[in-house]
């Protein structure tokens, strides 16, 4: 998700020449207006020049690298602030109300707001919607309104070719831009713009070099460290990095200025520097760990818990030994810097150095929730199928953000829409009416009393899904087109395959794979609901479809017995054929329907992503009670996990259910799992065996939580959601919620003693 207006106030700049509130925003707007009709690459370069180094923040007391940032309320950003040229209208207005401004200033600001209302990339995208899209996607307010599908306006998940950056350095990249410009027959502004953007990067290095030198001159125990920082920043303006510290510094500043925040295979592009430094005795492992820990803190300060991915491990790393050494250091940094960022992720395969997985599990066992584990042996063949990629390209698969797969620095796959599948079913059960608003929603379908059997219901549901996927895919392509027309994203295009070779901007034919993704929610609620309906209405015939509809409309009030029966129907997550087969059917349907939209929309791929963030809660709040027994307003199931508390057949049953959904037809499905601390300590071999069995059976990934005191307390407050929580006391295991209260307290106390 993108930052919202309400958080933008944090981003107000503190640049030296922009002490006046909104001065930077006005200067930015002025520059944009003056260059409005210039080639977009040159316009962007001019705008970057206003933003940088102005919005770079001072070096913090413990930083070993320069690079902190705070975005203005009006500016240019690929990812952190939304889409391209942005304006935080609400916060600007609030600022105008709160602070004293002269009448002239006020007028300028009002004028600026009017200007961006039509000119910001978000507005331009919405304005470009044809009528059919407006009808299918009537609202943007997906957090606060009831509806099936909503557009998101953003780009996300760009991972740059940092290997190329570190090999060439700033001077090498500038040379590349010059050569490319010279080789252009006609329009060369893209490369001139890239050159100018690199000048901005160079100036940002110099600005920080000066600052570090000044801080060093002031003396103190950090003087030597800051002197070195200054020397490094100065050196980076004239040559490629030669040491780990130089490489991290350049990487980090480039990442900040590029406005992207997923960092790719760090062990590949930094592993060699680490190995050289250690071999030559330039630094010790302890010092190298200190560098990474400092970088981890800077990444944390670049606050986005949904992104900030760092990858280590996996197939396709040229110098595996050096990369492994780096990977172990990265895991150690995550283990010892206790923050929720970066989102360290470990790719692994059968035969990889086992040290990496061992270190990862130790880190997880300490309650870090990182690294996230990705199984190459399943994911690479799956990505080959989903992306139509060859094995070498698939080996560069790169999940970002919440878990959407892309191809490392060669594809984009922004999720530019969300769809509530359970709302599709709800509307299908009400003949095209949304019961929450009592208004028509989606496309009109037959009234449920005309259904002659289960397949009629399925068709009504499927048509709602397909109709909205069609619209969402077109909207995704349209967003890319409008965004591409607004800006080339110079620093992104420079390090994204194959923009330079093709001489094209990232969204205008440059990126090798222009992909789209769609976030789907409620997948498992739909399949569990359909499974319950088929069983109770069409097989056991214990009630009618309209009984179930009335029960759901009444939030089961007065239908307690039916509610119990619905809850008692088979549920996904218990390794039961009936429920898991239905989950597979709904999964195949939505994934293949999305996939089929790519060619129509003019995208290379259009794939479902089933990820976890707060959308399952937001959508749940606007979705009526459902036939899986879920009550009105309750959150939808998280990603493709079972609905909370419905997996009651043990860990292996849960894991087996997860492996039944085809991973080769989507771009990522999040698998959350919680384990007890005891499993990670006293029963580590059994834990490893369970994860090993899961991955061998086709498990793609694992996002592991080791349960804490908080989990146990929550389980006592809301036992119905914690049926999966197992505890060990004395000679046997029990489900925590089955224990009497006193024993629960006892278990709680013992856990604290661990």
């Amino acid at each position: 998700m993108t930052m919202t207006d309400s958080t933008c106030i944090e981003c107000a700049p503190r640049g030296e020449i922009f002490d006046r509130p909104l001065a930077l925003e006005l200067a930015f707007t002025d520059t944009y207006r003056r260059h409005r009709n210039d080639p977009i690459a040159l316009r962007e370069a001019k705008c970057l020049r206003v933003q940088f180094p102005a919005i770079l923040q001072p070096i913090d007391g413990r930083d070993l690298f320069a690079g902190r940032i705070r975005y203005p309320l009006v500016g240019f950003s690929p990812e952190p602030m939304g889409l391209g040229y942005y304006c935080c209208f609400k916060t600007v207005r609030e600022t105008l109300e709160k602070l004293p401004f002269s009448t002239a200033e006020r007028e300028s600001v009002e004028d600026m707001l009017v200007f961006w209302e039509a000119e910001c990339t978000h507005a331009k995208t919405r304005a470009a919607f044809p009528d059919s899209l407006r009808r299918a996607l009537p609202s943007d307010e997906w957090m606060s309104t009831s509806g099936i599908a909503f557009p998101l306006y953003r780009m996300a998940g760009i991972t740059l070719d940092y290997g190329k950056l570190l090999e060439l350095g700033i001077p090498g990249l500038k040379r590349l831009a010059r050569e490319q410009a010279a080789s252009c027959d006609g329009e060369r502004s893209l490369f001139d713009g890239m050159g100018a953007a690199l000048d901005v990067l160079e100036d940002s290095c110099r600005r920080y070099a000066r600052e570090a030198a000044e801080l060093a001159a002031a003396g103190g125990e950090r003087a030597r460290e800051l002197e070195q920082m200054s020397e490094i920043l100065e050196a980076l303006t004239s040559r490629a990095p030669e040491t780990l510290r130089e490489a991290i510094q350049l990487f980090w500043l480039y990442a900040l200025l590029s406005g992207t925040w997923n960092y790719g295979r760090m062990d590949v592009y930094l592993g060699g520097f680490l190995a050289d430094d250690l071999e030559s005795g330039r630094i010790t492992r302890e010092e190298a760990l200190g560098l990474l820990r400092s970088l981890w803190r800077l990444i944390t300060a670049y606050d986005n818990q949904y992104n900030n991915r760092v990858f280590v491990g996996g197939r396709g790393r040229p110098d595996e030994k050096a990369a492994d050494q780096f990977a172990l250091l990265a895991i150690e940094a995550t283990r010892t810097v206790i923050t929720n960022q970066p989102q360290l992720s470990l790719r692994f395969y059968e035969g990889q150095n086992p040290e990496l997985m061992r270190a990862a599990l130790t880190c997880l066992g300490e309650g870090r929730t990182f690294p996230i584990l990705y199984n190459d042996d399943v994911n690479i063949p799956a990505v080959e199928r989903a992306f139509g990629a060859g094995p070498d390209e698939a080996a560069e698969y790169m999940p970002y953000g919440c878990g959407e797969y892309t191809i490392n620095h060669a594809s984009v796959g922004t999720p530019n829409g969300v769809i509530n599948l359970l709302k599709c079913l709800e509307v299908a059960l009400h003949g095209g009416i949304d019961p929450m608003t009592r208004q028509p929603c989606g496309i009109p379908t037959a009234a449920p009393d005309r259904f002659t059997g289960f397949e009629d219901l399925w068709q009504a549901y499927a048509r709602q899904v397909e109709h909205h996927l069609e619209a969402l895919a077109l909207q995704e392509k349209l967003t890319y087109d409008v965004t591409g027309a607004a800006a080339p994203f110079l620093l992104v295009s420079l390090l994204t395959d194959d923009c330079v070779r093709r001489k094209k901007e990232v969204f205008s034919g440059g990126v090798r794979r222009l992909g789209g993704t769609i976030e789907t929610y409620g997948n498992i609620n739909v399949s569990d609901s359909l499974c319950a309906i088929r069983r109770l209405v069409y097989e056991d015939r214990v009630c009618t479809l309209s009984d179930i509809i009335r029960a759901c409309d009444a939030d089961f009030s007065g239908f307690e017995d039916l509610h119990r029966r619905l809850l008692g129907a088979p549920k996904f997550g218990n390794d039961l054929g009936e429920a898991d087969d239905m989950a597979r059917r709904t999964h195949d349907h939505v994934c293949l329907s999305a996939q089929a939209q790519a060619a129509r929309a003019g995208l290379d791929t259009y794939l479902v992503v089933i990820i976890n963030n707060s959308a399952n809660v937001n959508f749940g709040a606007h979705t009526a009670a459902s036939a899986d027994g879920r009550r009105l307003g309750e959150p939808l199931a998280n990603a493709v996990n079972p609905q909370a508390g419905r997996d009651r057949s043990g860990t292996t049953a849960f894991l087996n259910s997860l492996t039944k959904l085809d991973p080769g037809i989507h771009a990522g499905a999040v698998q959350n799992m919680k384990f007890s601390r005891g499993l990670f300590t006293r029963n580590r071999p059994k834990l490893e065996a369970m994860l090993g069995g899961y991955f061998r059976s086709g498990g793609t990934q694992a996002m592991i939580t080791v349960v804490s005191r908080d989990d146990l307390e929550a389980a006592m407050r809301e036992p119905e959601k914690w049926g999966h929580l197992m505890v060990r006391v004395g000679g046997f295991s029990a489900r925590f919620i089955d224990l009497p209260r006193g024993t629960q307290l006892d278990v709680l106390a013992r856990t604290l003693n661990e």
Partner: protein
Amino acid sequence: MSRETRGIVLDIQRAALHDGPGVRTTVFLKGCPLRCLWCHNPESWKTDPECAVAPGQDEGPKTYGLPMTVAEVMGEVRKDLVYYETSGGGLTLSGGEPTLQFEFCAALLRAAHAGGIHTCLDTCGFGPAERFLELLPDVDLFLWDYKATGRDLHKALTGVTPDTIARNFRLLYERGARIMLRCPMVPGINDGDAHLEALAGIARDFPDLAGIELLPYHDWGAGKYEMLGLPRPALAAHLPDEDLLRKWRGYFEKTGCANVVVA
């Protein structure tokens, strides 16, 4: 006996981590000839299915015991084959006393072995010797209860004398059975010095045991008696504390019984 042989299954617990080596599926069979005063599974006593209502809950009656065929049970058990392979786990038959439904029990063990699945039999050891001998080829590990020391005490606490159990134990041990001794330790009831000494003696006299596991008492089954309409046995037990666990550990360290562990 065939795959259509039916038995009454109390529960099937997958991903069981504490009923033998590795990750296991524990199948609980209904019916038990003993009535241990500390029993926390009174719903396993009767062999026939039975109904119980939890007091003060609106969940409706709960049925304990489901008739299942060998094929049905093995279908569940086989779902976790991959985890048995990665962990060295398998099937554990427990109860109740699993050998009470003898034919069903034997058929399950045989079916598991035929499918290459490791087997554990969690037994109180009470029953005709020839039955245990018949099962022996299909049991990879016996989880054998040792509940109390002294004939009268054993009878008072479990309802039966230990003679048959002890005889069966020796017989199987001599025939080369792999046996892990499991001892519920109920403070103030069966954990006297004589009991500890007897355990140390067993550890010495039966050096080929797979191990001796002490299972500290807990009282989680207490609520079930009320549900089943059974009187709760009078048991003046208290829960073991850290000091007591330390005492037990210390005793077996001192007597050189490395084979004894507190679970």
